[in-house]
């Protein structure tokens, strides 16, 4: 077999991280960049979980790290999405301070 045990997850994770990073560099639209960052995040978590597997089963410490990381990634993605939406609602004007309510979609 080319890869054995938990390493199939780690290799998949590495591929995902690479794809996401490439896409982040190539795409210009913030939503696509946000998605690309999420793909990288998924890849990193998969690597962390896959490499943290011992023959006796999953490593609880690695799982704790992955869960913490996923919570942070979800929160940051939500923040990023909210910022993109707010920016789209403001049009292309820069200097759009938070808190000035505008008609959003």
């Amino acid at each position, binding site marked *: 077999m080319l890869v054995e045990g938990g390493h199939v997850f780690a290799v998949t994770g590495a591929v995902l991280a690479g794809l996401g990073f490439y896409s982040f560099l190539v795409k210009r639209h*913030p939503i696509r960049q946000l998605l690309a960052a999420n793909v*990288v995040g998924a890849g*990193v978590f998969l690597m962390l979980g896959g490499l943290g597997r011992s023959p006796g089963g999953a490593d609880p410490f690695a799982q704790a790290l992955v869960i913490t990381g996923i919570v942070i990634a979800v929160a*940051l993605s939500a923040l990023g999405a909210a910022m993109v939406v707010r*920016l789209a609602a403001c049009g292309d004007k820069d200097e*759009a*301070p*938070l808190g000035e309510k505008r008609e959003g979609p």
Partner: protein
Amino acid sequence: MSPLDLLVATPLGFMLAALAFGGQGRWLILVASPLMMSLAVWLVFLPPDAAHVVGGWDLPLGILLRGDGVARVFVLGAALCAALVGLQALYEFSPQSGGPSARNRGFWPLFYLMWAGANAGFLTTDLFNLYVALEMVSLAGVGLSALGSLQAALRYFLFALMGSLAYLLGVALLFANYGTVDITLLARTAEADAATLMALAVMTGGLLVKSALFPLHGWLPPAHAAAPAPASALLSAIVVKLGFVILMRLWFEAFATLAAPIAVGLLGALGAAAVIYGSIQAMRQRQLKALVAYSTVAQVGYLFVAFPLVAAAPSAAWSGMTLHAVAHMLAKAAMFLAAGLMLKAAPGRDIADLVGLARVMPVTVTAFALAAISLMGLPPSGGFAAKFMLLDAALDQGAYIYAAVLLGGGLMAAVYLFRPIAVAFSGAHGRAVALKAPLAAVAPLALAMCAIALGFFGVAFAELAAIGAPWAQGDAIGGVP
């Protein structure tokens, strides 16, 4: 309880309180500033091996906080900055300021979140806890810069997100390789295999984005220049420093034995390029805050010019590097606050609009000038003492190129910082109108005087920064099993 966890928990408590109290939450800073300052001073006087496991959980699930020399000087510097910037923000974000009320309220929770995250990052040596601290500070930093320009904040956010993920990728590789992510343990077991070097490379890349080293600085000038003055001060003084502190811990604590001269030399070369590029860009700016923001790009460069010097002779350059970081914290916070006040009084945002300002607001312009003295590295100031130590180390090692960069950078800083000062002192009949709040200039003046005063305490500072330093004899401090 110990000051170590109180330094992280207290600002988090204030964050929740600021959210709960809404519009009145701003008065909390009057309690928070003295409280946090006394905690930071307490930390400085703790015994040298101070360490504390939060909640008493066993490692590695428990969170170990340690007060080594680096942690002490950075926590104290950040406390000084944040306490004084917070007092200034009380004026800046008051309901009478005329800004949108959501902005006035939104500042405070972000401010306390940033403070808690920065302290957590300075006090921990666990790479994963550092990731969490890094994200807390980035989250707060993005929020703070969104108070000015949403577009700049979004750009900063995306860069910061990729930077954190690159860092986390390195943490994953190290964990898979060594089964631990504690810097002290890694220092004992690290070997120069492919996985370790790759981890170090991706982590460094991610952290260089966070600390805005040329050529990864692109997000910094728009975000720092557009934010309200107290937010800019915090971003330039504290947020940028956390990435640098983690890099210091990686290169000189965890992997000091593996750091190849070529790699350290590359960081030094990027630092030198940052000094030159940032200074030239600062000279070209028309707007005052953009000038100050590009000055941050240049000043971050010095911190990395110090990397090869520290790698070659740690004991000599270590104190110069940390002192430069703290002196820049104080001076840049003072300069952004002073610049914010000057722009409020001036008719426009350009440097040319500052005509006659020295007559209208002499105290604020003095604060700006004192901060400029430290940034240029003129004696007697913290910036001078730091540059002197670094220059001394560079000449000792025969690293004449770095010595030239240190001297030339100071000269260029003088060129771009004298420009706004000269304009402010010129012309008797400017269109500037004095502010009605004479006390507003107290915070920038106090910060600038701290930056100057640091020059008189260079030796005491060096002793403090050397507590438990990685190059000092004996194993790293702390009760790490």
